[in-house]
C-alpha cells in the first residue's frame, strides 16, 4: 500500500548528518551540547512547554519562557540554574548557536524554539495550535530551513470543530440535566484553564468546581494574568450543591472512586481524540468534547505550507500521515523517531 520511499524513511530513521539530531535523551543540538525537551536529566535543556513529556525535572540548567519555568518550579521544585527567555528574545548558547523563543499557542508559556547556527535556521515547534486561545499567546509563524513539527493529529480524519460548538454542547447538556452534574476530564495544565476561560467567554458566570489536582495550576494561571472567574473545590461542596454544576477533573479521575461523591455525573472528556467514536467508548465517555490544544490536520498542513521550509522533520504522533502529505506535495520530509515520546497525550 505505502510506497517504498516513505517506508524506508520511516523505518531506517533519520540521517546522522545535521547539527540538530535525535540522540539518547531526545533532540540534541550538537555544537552547543544541549538538548531540547530531554526526557533524562542533562547538563543543559531547552524546554518548549510545561507538559510532563516535554518538561522533566533534574536538569542542571534550563532555558525556557518565564511562564514555563514557573510551571516547572510548581511541578518539580526550583531547578539549579534557570535562564528565562521571553517571547521574541534570543539567547546565545555555546558553539555559536543562538536560540529564539517564539509563541506556540499550545498552553501558557509554550514556545517554538528557533535555532540559528552557521547561517542555517531550524525551528522546533514543540506542541502547537493555530486557533485562538484566551489563556496563551498565539502561534507566530517564522521562516526557517528545517521545520521540526509535531504530528499528534497527523491524519486527515482529525479536523477539530470550532470550540464554540463544543462549549455550547457542554452548556446544553448541563441545562438539560438539573439533577446531575457534568464531569469534564481535562488535563491539569492548559486544557482545564482553557475550558474555564472559554466557558466564561460564552457567558457562563457560575462557580466551576475543581478536583483538588487542578487547583494549583489554575492559581498559577491567575497569578500569570489569566483570569478564570469564580472557582471552587469539589471537596468543600455537598453532593446536593453540585447538582446542575460543571465539575473539572484530570482524565484519570473520570472513572475513579473519587467520582462517587458527585450527583450522578455525566462523564465528558475534552480531547482531540474524542473525534473518533470508539475512542470515546474506550474511555466510557457519554459526552465527548472535541477540544484540543494541538494543531489539527488542516492546521498542521497549512502551517508547513505557510512556513515553507526547505525540509520538514516530523515527530511526536502520526508521522506517517504527515510524511505522506509532504511526499504528495513534493516536500522533502522525514520522520524522526524520538526516544521517550508517546503519541497518546492531549
Amino acid at each position, binding site marked *: 500500500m505505502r510506497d517504498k520511499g516513505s517506508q524506508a524513511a520511516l523505518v531506517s530513521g533519520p540521517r546522522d548528518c545535521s547539527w540538530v539530531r535525535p540522540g539518547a535523551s531526545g533532540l540534541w543540538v550538537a555544537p552547543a551540547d544541549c538538548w531540547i525537551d530531554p526526557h533524562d536529566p542533562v547538563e543543559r535543556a531547552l524546554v518548549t512547554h510545561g507538559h510532563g513529556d516535554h518538561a522533566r525535572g533534574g536538569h542542571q540548567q534550563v532555558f525556557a519562557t518565564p511562564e514555563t519555568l514557573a510551571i516547572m518550579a510548581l511541578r518539580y521544585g526550583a531547578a539549579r540554574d534557570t535562564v528565562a527567555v521571553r517571547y521574541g528574545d534570543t539567547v546565545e548558547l555555546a558553539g555559536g548557536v543562538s536560540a529564539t523563543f517564539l509563541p506556540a499557542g499550545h498552553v501558557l508559556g509554550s514556545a517554538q524554539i528557533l535555532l540559528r547556527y552557521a547561517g542555517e535556521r531550524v525551528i522546533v515547534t514543540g506542541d502547537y495550535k493555530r486557533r485562538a486561545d484566551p489563556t496563551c499567546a498565539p502561534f507566530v509563524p517564522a521562516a526557517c530551513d528545517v521545520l521540526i513539527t509535531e504530528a499528534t493529529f497527523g491524519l486527515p480524519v482529525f479536523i477539530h470543530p470550532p470550540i464554540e460548538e463544543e462549549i455550547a454542547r457542554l452548556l446544553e447538556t448541563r441545562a438539560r440535566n438539573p439533577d446531575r452534574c457534568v464531569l469534564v476530564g481535562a488535563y491539569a495544565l492548559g486544557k482545564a484553564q482553557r475550558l474555564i476561560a472559554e466557558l466564561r467567554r460564552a457567558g457562563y458566570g457560575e462557580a466551576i468546581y475543581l478536583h483538588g489536582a487542578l487547583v494549583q495550576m489554575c492559581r498559577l494561571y491567575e497569578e500569570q494574568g489569566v483570569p478564570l472567574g469564580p472557582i471552587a473545590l469539589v471537596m468543600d461542596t455537598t453532593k446536593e450543591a453540585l447538582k446542575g454544576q460543571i465539575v473539572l477533573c484530570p482524565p484519570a479521575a473520570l472513572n475513579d472512586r473519587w467520582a462517587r461523591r458527585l450527583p450522578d455525573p455525566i462523564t465528558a472528556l475534552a480531547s482531540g481524540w474524542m473525534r473518533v467514536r470508539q475512542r470515546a467508548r474506550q474511555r466510557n*465517555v457519554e459526552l465527548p468534547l472535541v477540544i484540543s490544544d494541538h494543531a489539527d490536520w488542516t492546521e498542521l498542513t497549512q502551517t508547513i505550507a505557510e512556513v515553507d521550509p526547505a525540509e520538514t522533520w516530523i515527530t511526536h504522533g502520526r508521522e506517517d500521515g504527515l510524511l505522506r502529505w509532504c511526499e504528495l506535495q513534493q516536500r522533502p520530509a522525514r520522520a524522526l523517531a524520538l526516544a521517550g515520546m508517546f503519541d497518546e497525550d492531549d
Partner: protein
Amino acid sequence: MEAFAELLDALTYTRSRNGKLALIAAYLQRTPDPDRGWALAGLTNSLDFPAVKSAVIRQLAVERVDPVLFALSRDYVGDTAETVSLLWPAPPLPGTPPTVAEAVGLLSAMTRATVYGALPALLDRLDANGRYALLKLATGAMRNGVSTRLAKIAFAQAFDVPVTDVEEYWHGQHPPYAALFDWATGRAPPPHAAGAPQFRPFMLAHPIGDTAVDLDLYAVEWKWDGIRAQIVHGDETRIYSRSGDDISHSFPELLGALDTPVVLDGELLVRGAFQGGEEGGAASFNALQQRLNRKTVSRKMLEESSAFVRLFDLLLIGDEDLRPLPWHARRARLEQFAAGLDPARFDLSAIVPATSMEALAAIRDQARDQAIEGVMLKRRDSPYLAGRPMGLWYKWKRDPLLVDCVLMYAQRGNGRRSSYYSDFTFGCWNGDPDAGAELLPVGKSYSGFTDAELKWLDHHVRTHTVNRFGPVRETDRSLVLEIAFDSIHASKRHKSGLAMRFPRIHRIRADKLPREADRIETLRALVAAEP
C-alpha cells in the same frame, strides 16, 4: 436524518441496556412515520441496498483523499464508514439534510451505474455525524449493541404494549412497519399473525464454580461447541439465536425440515471433516462461523458444511406449552418427537451417564474433541424458565490447555479496540532456542486480557517495535505470553502445521525469558487423535 444521527451517537456512548432502551423508545415516540420505521429497520440491520457496498464507499473516499492517507486513517479509526464520514471534504455550501425516508428512497434507487454520482451528492448534504449515520444505514454493522430483540423491547416500551405481542405481530411485517406502528399507537387492529413462528426467551445456565451437585437430582449432557438456537415452526420455520435475532437466512437447509407446529431448543452445528464426540458428526466451530452473517449461502457451502441441530429441549408442540413440565417429562416428549425427524437435520444430544462428580470430572477431561466444550448439568425436575434461574442448570467447561508462547506481531483492533494494538500473533520454538532454533507462529488472539492488561500490551508493542509491515508491527520477541486454548489440531494452512481452537491470552509472563517458552513438539503432542 439529524435526529437519527443523534440517536446513533447517543447509543454509541450509552452502555447500559436500560439507557439504550430509553433512547430508542424516546426516538420512536417523537419521530413521525415513516422515518421511525426506516430507522428501526436500520437499527436492526433489516435494510439492504445492493448498489451501496463498503467497497464503493471506500472507492469514493480514495478518489477524494490519497489512498495511502485513507489506509492510514482507516487503520487508526477502525471503521470504514466512520473514516469516510470524517475524511469527506466539506462541500462549499451546506446542503439540506434529507429525512431518513428520503435517504432510504435515494439509496434504494441507486444502481451500480448511478451510485458513484448519487451517493456523493447525498453525502454532501450532511455534516460528519449525518454522513456517519447515512453510511451506517446503508451498510449495516452499527456496532452499538442493539439487537433485534432489544429493538422490539424498546418498541414495546415506547408504546406501552406487551413485548410478546410485538414479537408476534412483527412477524411478516416489512420496513417501515406501518401496520405495526398503526397498531401500537391505537390507530388500527393488530396485523394478522396467526401461526407466526415466534421467539421464546431461552433458559440459560450458570457456571458451576464450586457448587457441589447431587447427580441423583441432575441429568448430564455434553456442552456442544456450536450456536445455541431456537427452531420454531408455525406457518414457516424460523431459527433464532440466543439474542433473539432471526438467523434463518443463513441456514436454508433447515427451513423445510419440519411440519408440526413446534418450538425446539438445541445447538446448531455443522458437519465437517473434523468429526468427534460420542455421536460424531460435528465440525470445528470455525466452519460454523463461516456460515453466520451471510445473506446468501452458496451451493458449495451447503454441500461442504451442511448444518444440523442437536436437540436438547422441547418447549411447545401443537397447542401444548410444555415449559411448566419438569425436564424429564419434556425430554421424554422430545425423544418421542425427534424419532420422526430427518436424521440428517436433527439428532438428540445424548445423556451422559455419571454417578459422581469425580467420575464426571474424569469424563469431562477426556472429552477433548472438536465439538465438546464441557458438560451441562440440568436438574431433572426443572421447568423451562426464561433467563438464568438459580440452581437449575449448570455449565461445567473443561479446563483449557496452557502453553507459553512468545509475542511476535501485533495489529490494531477494530471497534471498541480501535487504535489499541490488541490482535496478537505468537509463536513457539522449532527446536532448542540455545542451538539456533527459530520461532514459528502458532496462533493469533485478541481476547483473554483485561482492559488494564490491554493497555500494558499496547504500550509494550509501541515501545518494542522493530519493524512495520503496513498495519502490522513486528516486536522484538522479548515477551512471553501464557496462552490458553481448548484444543489444537493439525493444519496445512500454517507454517507450524498446527492450529489452535479459541486461543486466548491467559497471563502475561513478563517474568519469563523467551528461551523458556514452549517448543512446537510440545504442542504437537497435544493434538487430539483425529480420523
